[in-house]
């Protein structure tokens, strides 16, 4: 090893693990982020991967920082290649500052010698007991470089492998010791210096991804019935709820298709359960018929769409914000709906929880629009507050003569459920009378249409206001929605401009009444979206008549990085 200093990193380090599917990159990501958080660092991680089970080239970004970080960066400080091809896979992101750390056989001649540190991971692993230990060696190497105390990693490994054979635990501890040896050597020689600030309070924070937050939120919201058909990236939500189904009393049924999944969810709500259908755009296309049914029979329903790029099969494992207008217009006929779009991991929890109350209260379908990027990003957050949104059940005990679609002053008909009370609960997908029976009374038709549409006015009182970030006296307003929240926010912080503000929407339909006021105050407005047609910009124009001045769009299947967004914002702001 050469002895000159290769690099020093302060405040924020970006580590990229790159290799084939099936090599255990996710295991390294999981072990490393947990350990780093437990030792007091802020961590963020996200993955991009191919639609295949083995092979290909995938990469995982881990940001470790002295400050809270929740958005992806393009920059690579430390690149850990796990297989040949890794370097070329991330070539565009490699700069002169990037240090490569790993086995020569994984990067070969692809990399300039002086920026590469050859660490014989598999050789060390073999000495410990076999190639399976190379992940632990890699975790320890990075943990050591980041000055994680040995005790923290050892304790984590004991916890992680609890229940396994003692020899396996011992070998992992040995693998960790060997990984630390390498890192100590690098640190001691001064070749690699990483100095980040630890914060004790972070040790107590929780580290979760969007999927976990969404599933936890659904449970907190009383979800006890999930019907789905597997489709990336939404499947993970169903898998997680299935794993916890016994504990929380949830029926998780894999349907024969999304048509069935949607109709099951509606059937479950009819019988008083709280149903969720989780899917992606293509699966939702099949649910559209059922969505219209929910609109007509005024059934509550919660639909989670984990967005990925379309049309058709598109890029199955990548990200996009492409289903907003689809969700808005889906379903034949006219009926109100609510569309929520979490921007953060906390939002995934609180909005999923709220969705069930809203659906129940207003008897409308409620969408939760996430995307592959948000679902599969992890970062630490202080906690989740279970008391913030109390569970409110809105169905009533029926009396003899109950009319499901009673025309009321307030607009909402009290929702009965079968078997609870003496009344009969009658629903019809045809136009119906107050009792729920088929009608072709065209005057009654007008009343029923008005009743359904009036709910849009009623639910305005619960519309979530957009989040405003920045100076009150702004000249330029950046507008975003859903998963772009943190990337936009960090990009703006880095630009440090004084007259730019950011307006983020986590409820995208209906729009909050203050929307236009915010927009009109700006001299210039910029919409930022992870799609090709500025769908939210169009929605704003449709609802308010306001035209956004500029667009920053991205639709290659990847989320915005902070740097990329910063550059594109800069060129507009100048």
């Amino acid at each position, binding site marked *: 090893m050469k002895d000159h200093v290769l690099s020093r990193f302060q405040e924020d380090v970006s580590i990229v693990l790159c290799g084939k599917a099936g090599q255990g990159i996710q295991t390294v990501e999981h072990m490393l982020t947990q350990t780093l958080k437990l030792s007091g660092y802020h961590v963020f991680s996200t993955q991009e991967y191919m639609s295949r089970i083995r092979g290909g080239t995938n990469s995982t970004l881990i940001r470790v920082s002295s400050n809270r970080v929740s958005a992806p960066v393009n920059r690579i400080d430390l690149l850990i290649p796990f297989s040949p091809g890794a370097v070329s896979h991330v070539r565009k992101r490699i700069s002169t500052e990037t240090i490569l750390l790993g086995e020569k056989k994984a990067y070969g001649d692809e990399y300039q010698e002086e920026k590469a540190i050859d660490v014989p991971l598999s050789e060390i692993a073999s000495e410990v007991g076999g190639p399976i230990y190379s992940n632990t060696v890699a975790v320890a190497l990075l943990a050591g470089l980041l000055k994680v105390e040995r005790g923290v990693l050892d304790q984590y490994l004991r916890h992680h492998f609890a229940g396994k054979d003692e020899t396996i635990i011992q070998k992992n501890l040995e693998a960790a010791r060997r990984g630390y040896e390498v890192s100590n050597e690098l640190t001691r020689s001064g070749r690699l210096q990483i100095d980040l600030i630890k914060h004790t309070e972070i040790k*107590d924070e929780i580290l979760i991804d969007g999927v976990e937050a969404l599933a936890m939120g659904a449970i907190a919201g009383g979800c006890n019935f999930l019907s789905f058909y597997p489709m990336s990236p939404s499947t993970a939500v169903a898998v997680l709820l299935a794993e916890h189904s016994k504990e*929380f009393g949830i029926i998780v049924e894999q349907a024969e298709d999304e048509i069935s999944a949607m109709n099951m969810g509606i059937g479950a709500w009819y019988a008083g359960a709280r149903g969720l259908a989780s899917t992606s755009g293509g699966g939702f296309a099949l649910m559209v*018929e059922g969505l219209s049914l929910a609109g007509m029979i005024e059934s509550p329903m919660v639909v989670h769409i984990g967005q990925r790029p379309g049309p058709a099969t598109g890029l199955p494992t990548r990200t996009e914000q492409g289903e907003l207008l689809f969700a808005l217009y889906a379903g034949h006929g006219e009926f109100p709906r609510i569309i929520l779009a979490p921007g953060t991991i906390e939002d995934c929890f609180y909005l999923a929880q709220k969705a069930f109350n809203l659906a129940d209260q207003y008897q409308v379908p409620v969408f939760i629009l996430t995307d592959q990027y948000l679902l599969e990003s992890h970062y630490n957050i202080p906690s989740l507050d279970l008391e913030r949104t109390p569970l409110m059940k809105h169905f009533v005990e029926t009396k003899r003569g109950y009319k499901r679609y009673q025309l009321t002053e307030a607009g909402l008909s009290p929702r009965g459920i079968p078997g609870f009370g003496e009344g009969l609960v009658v629903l019809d997908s045809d136009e119906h009378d107050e009792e729920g029976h088929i009608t072709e009374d065209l005057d009654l038709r007008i009343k029923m249409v008005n009743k359904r549409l009036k709910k849009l006015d009623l639910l305005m009182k619960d519309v979530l206001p957009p989040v405003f970030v920045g100076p009150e006296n702004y000249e330029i307003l950046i507008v975003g929605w859903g998963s772009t929240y943190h990337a936009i926010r960090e990009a703006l912080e880095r630009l440090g401009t004084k007259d730019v503000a950011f307006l983020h929407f986590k409820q995208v339909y209906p729009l909050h009444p203050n929307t236009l006021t915010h927009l009109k105050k700006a001299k210039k407005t910029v919409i930022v979206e992870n799609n090709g047609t500025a769908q939210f910009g169009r929605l704003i124009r449709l609802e308010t008549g306001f035209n956004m001045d500029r667009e920053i769009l991205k639709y290659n299947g990847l989320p915005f990085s902070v740097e990329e967004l910063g550059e594109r914002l800069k060129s507009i702001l100048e």
Partner: protein
Amino acid sequence: MDMKRFDMEEIDIAWCPGCGNFAILNALKQALYELEVKPEKLVVVSGIGQAAKAPHYYRCNLFNGLHGRSLPVATAIKAANPELVVIDESGDGCMYGEGGNHFIHGIRRNPDITNIVHNNMVYGLTKGQASPTSLQGFKTPVQRNGVFQEAFNPIALAISLGASFVARAFAGDTSQTKKMIKKAISHKGYALVDILQPCVTYNKLNTYQWFKANTYYLDTSHDPYDRMEAFKKASEMEKLPLGVFYLNPKPAFEERWSVYQGSRDPLYTRTPDLTKLSEWIDSKRGM
């Protein structure tokens, strides 16, 4: 018990005079009465078509949903509240055409529901096109040279899927139809009752007389627990057998869910266990 408990006060029935649906309606009401089912505990799910309007003509909780989609709805209702008596009642086009995939997988799930299919071998409400069960050669304004596809055989398909109860009835015989419906409702698990019925307006081939001449009742020598025998009987097309073809007792869909292992309470009575959720969230602190 009031015999009239299932009667509606004033209704305008949308069926043609002489329609087989009337006989099925009567048989079903009698069956429900004799089984002492309470209308408040009864949910009938239907799709779209003339048959699917049936539940509007007797007192019950009613979910008249989309064409072909009744089975997923019925399955979920029973799963969400096993205390309810759930019947899925629709026509041959709805159940075997538009809803074919749900029919297959509904049988595989085996919810404790009764699936009554009004099978008149024609589409009535859309004015006389072929249905999946139309016989070969049946001429319609669309199938002008006659239907050339093999007729869909719901009985044989249900037996092949291991359905827990498979029967065929004929609407012209109210007494036998009622008996079969009673058996089906009393049966634990998915029960198919395919009821042959004439369409007096659009099916001039399969009339009351045709069904009388082309059906016969399975006698006591038929062993409904013998799957191969049941399949043989289901494959007979010369004369269509009537009766219970096949019985295959097994646990119902809703019985398999862990949510009902500790308690049989319907889901609507439940609230999430926030203490456990809090523990799960806490576990994400790391150790």
